């Protein structure tokens, strides 16, 4: 069953329609929309800028910390094998071993 409701009515007169025609109201709504759009764009730019400044400051702070306490941030560990046989010989193919 269809969900449409069908009604019969009289033709609406041009005078009745003219009551609803208001271009200045439309333009006012449009300029409000443009203002809001510009504000949102400005806000997004400001947020991006703030975020970038915060990131820059964090990086600067981390670099400063590293300079003050270099031992705390030492990450490279020297690797010395305990004996020559540390690396086991790997069979390259069946029955053949590396020299």
């Amino acid at each position, binding site marked *: *069953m*269809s*969900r*449409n*409701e*069908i*009604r*019969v*009515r*009289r*033709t*609406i007169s*041009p005078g*009745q*329609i003219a009551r*609803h*025609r*208001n*271009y200045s*109201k*439309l*333009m006012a*709504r*449009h300029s409000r*929309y443009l203002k809001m759009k510009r504000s949102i764009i400005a806000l997004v730019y400001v947020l991006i800028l703030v975020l970038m400044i915060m990131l820059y400051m964090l990086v600067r702070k981390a670099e400063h910390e590293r300079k003050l306490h270099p031992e705390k941030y030492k990450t490279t560990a020297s690797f010395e094998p305990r004996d020559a046989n540390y690396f086991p010989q790997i069979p390259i193919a069946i029955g053949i071993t590396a020299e």
Partner: protein
Amino acid sequence: MTEAEIQYEYAILERSKRNPNAFGELYEKYFDRIFNFIYRQTDDEELTDDLCSQTFLSALKNIGHYEFRGVPFSAWLYKIASNEVNKHYRKKKNNKVFSIEEVRVRELFEQANEDWDEEILQKLLQYFKELPTDMLQVLELRFFEDKDFKEIAFILDITESGAKMRTYRALDRLRKNFNLRIKYDVKE
């Protein structure tokens, strides 16, 4: 609509992209038609006022994206209006209303005065009520708005052959049910 008229409207649109005040001419030209189109689908003056205003506002907002696609600018406005009406019904979850002017129904069936009684009208209303929404939309655009199939296809986002098929199917059903002469093709 002639090629010159389409070009003239396109020039206004190009101006409107730079200066929204230029859009006023198109607003004045199409307001009545869009208002009637929406009113037919709402039967509520205040709601139609809101949706109509929203339609023109959306048109103004998106005028920068408008591209000429072989149909008059009005088809774009009808498409926006149709989307606004659908959006309203989706939000409210109400039954869709189609309010038809009795005069236009008579015109559609070429029954100006004679052999037209209340009984036939009620039967027709029942018939329209049982039609699926997509067929009703096509009939509305074709016979009450005098749109050609290309424009109907653009407005409803369907193919041209799809629009023709829907119209002819609805009219065939109408012919079978009623012994009325239908104004089959307003224009081709």
